[in-house]
């Protein structure tokens, strides 16, 4: 990576807010998210359903319905201010600089066109080459994502492929124009466990070879552990903890991350009860003033609900939003249930 890449990160999100405005209410889907991603890095966003993971990703590509969405803050990808892009520039960015893998390979491919055709169209759209050139490229890509007998699959329609192959085709399409940033929105959730791991290994391998930055959204901690360099944990539209994957999953600091880890099923837990986090996430239409996790937190105290806890940044670059943490290098306070 060159020096410039070090100076300006590939992705910079600053105070990103996404609100969905309807006549009845305003949903605060994403609140003051700050994130950076270096080129060639894999960031995993973990969080439960409705925590704003997918919304942040779609905001990054401006895929949300414009009429009902209010986005504020800064979104910068490769030095470009995404929020100020218009029309043609925006669609050049989508699929060119940034591309996306969707969760459902069943529905994210158009059923009436062959897989090769869909990839070739994308290539033609961004590189302005002929359709035949695009098809050649599609064949290369299908081989790259290890679709067996790629030549034959090129003319196959999505319904003729298995789920795993379809997801590979999706990945091939996303990679078709050599994006610098790949957004993966739970790409393995719809696949079964054996295929899941194949796809993850493949993604990791291609990512390393192409030097892409990847933002990977998942609610599966195992998947995150497999693929991520860094992890960001989201809760109720906020990032509550970030750090390297070893640190966050090995030594979680935020009570929510701890709770999430202890509620995960491990292989060696036979006979033990799983510790669930009580309660449910807050209503995003009426956010509590303080820490949004406080109502469910077993360490909560009155100060938690008084004001939003600040971002506590540790020396090694880790961040967690909890008032019980201090940014000192000293051994951190042992959390005691209130």
């Amino acid at each position, binding site marked *: 990576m060159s020096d410039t890449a070090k100076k300006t990160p590939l992705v910079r999100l600053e105070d990103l807010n996404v609100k969905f405005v309807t006549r009845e209410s305003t949903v605060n889907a994403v609140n003051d998210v700050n994130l950076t991603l270096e080129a060639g890095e894999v960031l995993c966003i973990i969080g439960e359903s409705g925590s704003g993971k997918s919304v942040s990703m779609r905001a990054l590509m401006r895929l949300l319905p414009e009429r009902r969405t209010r986005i504020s803050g800064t979104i910068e990808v490769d030095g470009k201010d995404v929020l100020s892009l218009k029309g043609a520039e925006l669609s050049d960015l*989508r699929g060119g600089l940034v591309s996306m893998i969707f969760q459902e390979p069943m529905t994210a491919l*158009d059923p009436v066109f062959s897989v090769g055709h869909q990839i070739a169209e994308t290539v033609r759209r961004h590189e302005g080459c002929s359709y035949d050139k695009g098809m050649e490229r599609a064949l290369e890509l299908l081989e*790259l994502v290890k679709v067996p*007998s790629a030549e034959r699959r090129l003319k196959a329609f999505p319904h003729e492929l298995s789920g795993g192959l379809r997801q590979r085709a999706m990945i091939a*399409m996303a990679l078709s124009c050599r994006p610098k940033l790949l957004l993966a929105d739970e790409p393995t959730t719809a696949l079964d466990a054996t295929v899941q791991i194949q796809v993850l290994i493949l993604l990791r391998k*291609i990512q390393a070879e192409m030097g892409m930055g990847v933002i990977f959204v998942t609610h599966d901690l195992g998947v995150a552990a497999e693929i991520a360099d860094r992890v960001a944990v989201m809760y109720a539209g906020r990032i509550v903890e970030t750090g390297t994957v070893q640190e966050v999953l090995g030594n979680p600091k935020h009570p929510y991350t701890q709770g999430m880890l202890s509620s995960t099923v491990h292989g060696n837990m036979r006979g033990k009860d799983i510790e669930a986090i009580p309660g449910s996430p807050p209503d995003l239409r009426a956010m509590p003033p303080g820490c949004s996790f406080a109502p469910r937190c077993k360490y909560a105290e009155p100060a938690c609900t008084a004001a939003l806890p600040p971002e506590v940044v540790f020396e090694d670059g880790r961040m967690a939003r909890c008032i019980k943490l201090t940014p000192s290098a000293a051994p951190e306070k042992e959390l005691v249930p209130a």
Partner: protein
Amino acid sequence: MANITMSPADAAAVQGAPSVRVRSYWQNVGYRLRYDYLTLFFGAMVILIILSAIFAPLLAPMDPYQSSLINRLKPIGYKDFLLGTDELGRDILSRMLYGGRISLTMGIVPVLIATIVGGSLGIVAGFVGGRTNMIIMRTVDVFYAFPSILLAVAISGAMGGGIVNGMLSLTLVFIPPLCRVAETATSQVRNLDFVEAARATGARTLSIIRVHILGNVLGPILVYSSSMVSVSILLASGLSFLGLGVTPPEPDWGLMLNTLRQAIYINPVVCAIPGVAILITSICFNLVSDGLRSAMDVRL
């Protein structure tokens, strides 16, 4: 592009894959049609009907306008009249051949125009949604409030008789239902992931509509509109009966059916001939469109 070597397992999978011949889309369609004898048969019938209408002047044994008071309402096979004569003694066969020209035109042209206009309106309404949808669909609903024949009569009554005005009014009658079919199909497709995926790969709105929406919506629209052809023939005959569409002595199947109606007790078989022609034509069109749809649907 980075080159990744295949793992042994993948390589084995490649070798193990059965070598199925790859056909292109149209080869596939042709292959399916070749074994669909029903569709082939009725397709041939449709072509035959259309050809007989086109070459009516060559095929017709007599002048379709030549009446003869002695030979009124003769049965099938009387003298040279292969299909008998009508109430003015004109040769039914010749009139049927010539009538096909007008009837088929009245059946196909309004539906064709309505498919293009109504289909586009419906796709726009379904894709854009919101206020645009409301304006288009509520306007269409106004037309829906009238029974179709009444609407056709009202419109062509206001514009005056004649074939062109009749076709225009039929077009207006068929736009609302086609618009509705297109709108429903579009709004179903619009929210599917692949539309968002297309946007995420940089496709512009127009090309999303042209490629992804149209590709998924054209099937249902075409099937519906092809079934409208027979309705259109019948409605055209209704207009002719009221003196609004085709005017006598012009031969037209619907008009013939209506004028021969009075002779139903004298010569029922001859009276039925135009009706049978309409029936056969519409059945042929329906079955062919059905067969084409299943041959062209990639998902089957």
